[in-house]
């Protein structure tokens, strides 16, 4: 690795830091996009098996080349702009959906050294960037000049703002006990504690002392992603496909890329914040990025499982869950955690 860095520094001179950062960005984005492609296949396969179907199996062995075929098909399709649509915004909206989904990965750590930008306020940064993803959906709905798309956009705007509050409160509890906004330190804080001393690391992770917050975060994360059972913005049986009903070709594909890379992002955040990130569940096993990948895969599987299992929420039920159930739980647990931290029984010293 050092040899590569030295060679590059000699080759590019003063421009080397910029080039090296670009290389690192490509090293994050390429696996991410590959992960997105195969997540779509995994979704179809997993839901297929849960519904006693086979799922895609025509393209390549076990349908393994299916996502590539889908991508190529969308790439070669024409991007249609409906008449009377607000053309500029119509085309910018998918980019606004996909941009934040990628930008958030800048601060996500994979191990304590493997991180693109280890900044102090990384959790805040992620919250700020992901909160901008909603614009892609609202603007696509508005710019399409279609009633269904607009309904989807309105639903999505209200839903995202509502669940962001519950999500923010659960993150607040986590950063209170970690005493840091830095994701590397938050993961580091979970590796010590009473159970970690016995070698049972997985009982020291944040999920156990903050169990209600873990559940709230997991569910409101699903709602933020507009995934089933909270996919009222798409609602194909009520408003056809909601905000992206007028999109075709690559513009449509960008919404999908955004949704699936956001899924991977939220799964990664859940693993980092409450499931101990790259630390191994048992003391005698070595830590490493493979643990993080395993945890991400488990949570992604959970999302697919949700979709295959639960019927869609009605819109008012969804709002009730966000405001009347999650918000009070969060407020109470915030106080509980605060008192717990200040009491002699505190486990976060």
């Amino acid at each position, binding site marked *: 690795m050092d040899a590569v860095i030295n060679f590059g520094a000699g080759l590019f001179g003063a421009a080397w830091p910029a080039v090296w950062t670009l290389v690192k960005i490509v090293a994050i984005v390429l696996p991410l996009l590959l992960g997105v492609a195969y997540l779509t296949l995994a979704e179809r396969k997993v839901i297929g098996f849960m519904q006693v179907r086979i799922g895609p199996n025509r393209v390549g062995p076990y349908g393994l080349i299916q996502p590539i075929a889908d991508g190529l098909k969308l790439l070669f399709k024409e991007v249609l702009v409906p008449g*009377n649509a*607000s053309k500029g*915004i119509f085309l910018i909206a998918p980019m606004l959906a996909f941009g934040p989904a990628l930008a958030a990965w800048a601060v996500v750590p994979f191990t304590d050294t493997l991180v693109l930008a280890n*900044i*102090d*306020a990384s959790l*805040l*940064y992620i*919250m*700020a*960037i992901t*909160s*901008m993803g*909603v*614009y892609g959906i*609202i*603007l696509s709905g*508005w710019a399409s*000049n279609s*009633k269904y798309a*607009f309904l989807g*956009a*309105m639903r999505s*705007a*209200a839903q*995202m*703002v509502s669940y*962001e509050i519950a999500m923010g409160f659960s993150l607040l509890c986590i950063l209170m006990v970690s005493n840091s*906004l830095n994701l590397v330190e938050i993961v580091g804080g979970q590796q010590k504690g009473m159970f970690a001393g016995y070698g049972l690391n997985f009982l020291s992770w944040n999920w156990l002392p903050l169990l209600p917050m873990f559940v709230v975060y997991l569910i409101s994360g699903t709602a933020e992603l507009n995934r089933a059972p909270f996919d009222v913005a798409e609602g194909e049986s009520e408003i056809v496909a909601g905000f992206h009903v007028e999109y075709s070709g690559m513009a449509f594909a960008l919404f999908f890329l955004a949704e699936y890379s956001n899924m991977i992002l939220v799964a990664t955040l859940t693993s980092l914040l409450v499931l101990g990130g790259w630390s191994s569940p048992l003391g005698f096993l070595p830590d490493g990025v493979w643990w993080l990948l395993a945890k991400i895969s488990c949570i992604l599987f959970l999302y697919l499982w949700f979709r295959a299992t639960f019927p869609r929420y009605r819109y008012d039920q969804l709002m009730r869950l966000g405001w009347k159930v999650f918000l009070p739980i969060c407020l109470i647990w915030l106080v509980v955690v605060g008192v717990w931290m200040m009491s002699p029984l505190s486990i976060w010293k």
Partner: protein
Amino acid sequence: MDFQTFVFYFLSAILVFAALRVITARNPVHAALHLILAFFTCGGIWALLQAEFLAIAIILVYVGAVMVLFLFVVMMLDINLDRIRQGFWNYLPLGAVLGLLMVMEMGLVLGNKALQIPASTVVTPPGVSNVKEIGKMMFTDFVYPFELASIVLLVGMIAAIALTWRGRKKSKYVNPNQQVFVKAKDRLRVLQMPVEKD
């Protein structure tokens, strides 16, 4: 010109352009979008001044939450631009006076030596967390203003709820006596909505 100055001027140019478009754009949604761009660029300029917490906070609060709701409202409004523009020339003198006053106030603040911080003292050493410092200040030196601000926000929140509160809904049971007399046209109204052109 070093790189930082270049970035500053670049962001400032975008900020001024976006701010101008907020008041000149004919379409209210376009105006709101330019306001979002202005907030975002403003965050960039603050990040350049090493105020990373403020930079992230403005994006998190204003871009991520306030403007979403704002856009939500603006998109649903049926704004007739010609009617709004009717009294333009009548209001112009008053508006111009107010604008001039604001420019003068800004000039006084910016031109005042006592209110300016020399650039050298602003630079924070590496390793000092902006967020931690702001938190410490908020809960020690500025705890009363901070609490006051939170009370003002609470009052605003309660006032907003009190203004829109229409009383508790009575129970949802239906009176079968009224129910049998309901006709479809009392319940359902089919509207013709022509497609709007931007």
